[in-house]
């Protein structure tokens, strides 16, 4: 096994399981759509809440996406093969996360203009929303996989992952929505974006190693 062959296999698997990605996207769209219907369809309210609505829906969708990320690998013995491959386990985990992140993020960004229009998000804030997604979602995936690896051998691990991981998602939600609100108010938002980048970088450094420890424990 090489890192390249591993990554190719991961992309092939994502393509063959594209229904999983579509399901997560549909969930995201439905969750966002419910707000104008269930809370208020007033353009003023929606414009001010759009960032928060989109981010909360995205966090739930990402939790859905990462929760079962290693389940199939655990069942078919791939996790054991990763451990004994002689390759760096954190690097393999990172490659898997990158593949999953791209598979989720690209279609998500594709539907973002439609959802922003629906929620009357000001055009000036739209690109800030996109930037918060680009800078914030890596940390959500990287933190999420730690929970996914810890609960991989449990049959009903979804709720446990949510309880374990959701508190760590809160800073990302807070700084993302603050950046969008600051952009709407024509205030500087680079500080919030810098914090989102810092959180993603910190997760990038820590998460693959913590996930590797959890996977080794699960594989044994």
């Amino acid at each position: 096994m090489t890192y390249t062959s591993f990554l190719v296999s991961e992309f092939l698997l994502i393509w063959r399981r594209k229904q999983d990605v579509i399901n997560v996207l549909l969930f995201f769209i439905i969750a966002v759509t419910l707000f104008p219907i269930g809370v208020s369809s007033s353009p003023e309210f929606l414009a001010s809440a759009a960032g928060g609505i989109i981010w909360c829906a995205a966090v739930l969708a990402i939790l859905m996406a990462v929760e079962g990320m290693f389940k199939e690998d655990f069942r078919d013995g791939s996790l054991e093969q990763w451990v004994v491959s002689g390759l760096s386990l954190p690097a393999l985990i990172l490659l898997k996360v990158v593949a999953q992140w791209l598979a989720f993020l690209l279609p998500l960004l594709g539907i973002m203009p439609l959802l922003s229009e629906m929620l009357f998000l000001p055009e000036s804030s739209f690109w800030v929303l996109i930037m918060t997604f680009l800078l914030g979602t890596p940390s959500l995936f990287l933190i999420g996989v730690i929970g996914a690896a810890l609960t991989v051998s449990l049959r009903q691990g979804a709720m446990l992952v949510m309880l374990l991981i959701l508190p760590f998602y809160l800073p990302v939600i807070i700084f993302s929505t603050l950046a969008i609100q600051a952009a709407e108010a024509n205030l500087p938002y680079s500080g919030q974006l810098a914090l989102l980048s810092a959180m993603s970088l910190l997760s990038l450094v820590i998460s693959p190693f913590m996930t590797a420890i959890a996977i080794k424990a699960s594989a044994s």
Partner: protein
Amino acid sequence: MQSSVSLTISGLWIERGERDLCKDFSFSAQSGEVVRILGENGAGKSSLLKVIVGVISPLEGKIVYSGEDVTLDRNPLQQDAIYIGHSVGVKNLLTVAENIRCYCPDVSPETLDTVLKQLDLLDHIDALVRTLSAGQLRRVALARLWLTEKTLWLLDEPFASLDVGAIALLEERIQLHVSSGGLVVLTTHQDLRSLSCRDVALLS
């Protein structure tokens, strides 16, 4: 393949849950040998292979591979070993060729075809693995044994689900491997027909 390798295990103590699987277990093997680990169900044969390859850690003991102490860091051993366990690490949603290429990316199409023909999988080369039988799935995993240059093979029940022809083929492949300097440690309850091996008993 290396000219000569050796594996020495001494004073191994494996615990699973609250149960001691083996205590103070020792054996050594070297190139040209097939070592069959014998023991009752639950005696710890699979766990022993997992300990050797580094999936699980022993409570005590020392593992030396080709003169190097790999007890704390199995990487030197892993670089030179293939481990095929009960769950074989084959992806249901990849084709036979894609699965093999994940583990053996440098294999040429001609070599792949030849090996798959031997294993009676050539007709299924582009079939998703989920459409194959259990025996065929195991053959997909075992195809790696024909395609890699690793010296140490750790095989957990490699003959399970295989038909008579495939068992004979695998025994022949193992024999060829050890005669060219390889070392094989396997567990099986199967009577080996043509393969001469050294038995090591794992007593509970």
